[in-house]
């Protein structure tokens, strides 16, 4: 089975290479009266099916790395190697797509032009977007193959999770949050499982929604070069695409703010392993997560 998965990945890689080369060759042949920007638009949209298909194939390979593991020193595998790979690929995509997308938007708002031609910003943005789409396709494929739902709040568990989240919030916010959601803080703090309540209630759902939003709106925007898209739909997709970009900028800041002081999380997303009682805040604030034994209870993600 493993050899079949590898074969699919190799075939996917070859097809991406051939597909992208054909699209670039067609755009740069001079047969069409396209400028740099329009050529890139067509190359991007024609490459997308290959990129998405390759992502699905790599997701199958990522799923092969799924499974709970405990090291002899008691460390547990918090993320599978496949998840870690997908996370860093997604990071690379954001590093390329976010600043270039932001400049396209801000440049228009401020009405200024840099000495660098605008089409180069679009080109880098499309490369970044392709990497993001590849990672999203890989994660969808990975999650459907493994059936892993450990980052989702199980049915009937929202009350416990919202209570747990209250105890993870800073004391200055806890009271207001509890009052808003009518949470009884006299109840004991529930134990966190493999992931913190903040990760399950805030981080994962919001990342999923915003990634879905930027992916769908981006595909609609790119799709207009191959199928007619009504003006209103295009306007709505463009507006929501920018909104999703701004939300991602904010989410990224929050993600880094949350993970940096919990250094064990940084270690886990690099090495896949988590050793210490996790994920403790490195300085001050008293959040404590699950024990290593508790983490070992489920599969890695």
């Amino acid at each position, binding site marked *: 089975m493993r050899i079949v998965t590898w074969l699919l990945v190799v075939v996917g890689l070859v097809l991406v290479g051939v597909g992208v080369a054909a699209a670039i060759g067609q755009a740069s042949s001079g047969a069409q009266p396209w400028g740099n920007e329009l050529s890139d638009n067509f190359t991007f949209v024609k490459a997308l099916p290959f990129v998405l298909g390759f992502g699905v194939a790599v997701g199958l390979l990522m799923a092969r790395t799924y499974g709970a593991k405990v090291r002899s020193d008691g460390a547990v595998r918090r993320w599978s190697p496949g998840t870690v790979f997908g996370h860093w690929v997604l990071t690379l995509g954001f590093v390329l797509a976010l600043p270039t997308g*932001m400049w396209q938007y*801000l440049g228009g*708002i*401020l*009405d200024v032009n840099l000495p660098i031609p605008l089409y180069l910003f679009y080109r880098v943005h499309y490369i970044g977007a392709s990497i993001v789409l590849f990672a999203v396709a890989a994660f969808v494929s990975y999650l459907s193959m493994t059936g892993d739902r450990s980052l989702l709040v199980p049915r009937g568990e929202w009350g416990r999770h919202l209570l747990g989240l209250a105890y993870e919030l800073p004391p200055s916010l806890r009271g207001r949050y509890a009052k808003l959601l009518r949470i009884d803080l006299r109840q004991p703090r529930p134990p966190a499982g493999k992931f913190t309540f903040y990760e399950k209630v805030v981080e994962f759902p919001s990342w999923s929604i915003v990634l879905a939003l930027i992916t769908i709106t981006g595909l609609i925007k790119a799709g207009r070069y191959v199928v007619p898209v009504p003006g209103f739909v295009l306007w709505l997709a463009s507006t929501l695409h920018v*909104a999703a970009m*701004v939300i991602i*900028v*904010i989410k990224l*800041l*929050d993600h*880094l*703010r949350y993970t*940096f*002081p919990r*250094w064990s999380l*940084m270690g886990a997303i690099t090495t896949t392993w988590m050793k210490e009682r996790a994920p403790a805040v*490195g*300085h001050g604030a008293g959040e404590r997560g699950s024990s290593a034994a508790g983490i070992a209870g489920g599969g890695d993600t």
Partner: protein
Amino acid sequence: MRRLVALLGLVWSLANLGVAYFFLTSAFVAKTAAKEGILAQLSLLLGGVLIAGFAVLLARECLRMLTSAAASEPA
């Protein structure tokens, strides 16, 4: 390693503060009102405030990491 990550985080938060500045100032210029309308102005204002707020929170964490790393070093 922590120090390098903290420094990169600090650079990222400063860059985002720059973005927030352009969002906030653009929300109040007549050109945006004429070109984009009041909804875009409000979105820029809200986006700018949120980006600035979270950038400050990240910068604070990075500074804490830098100072705690300096404090843990032997004299």
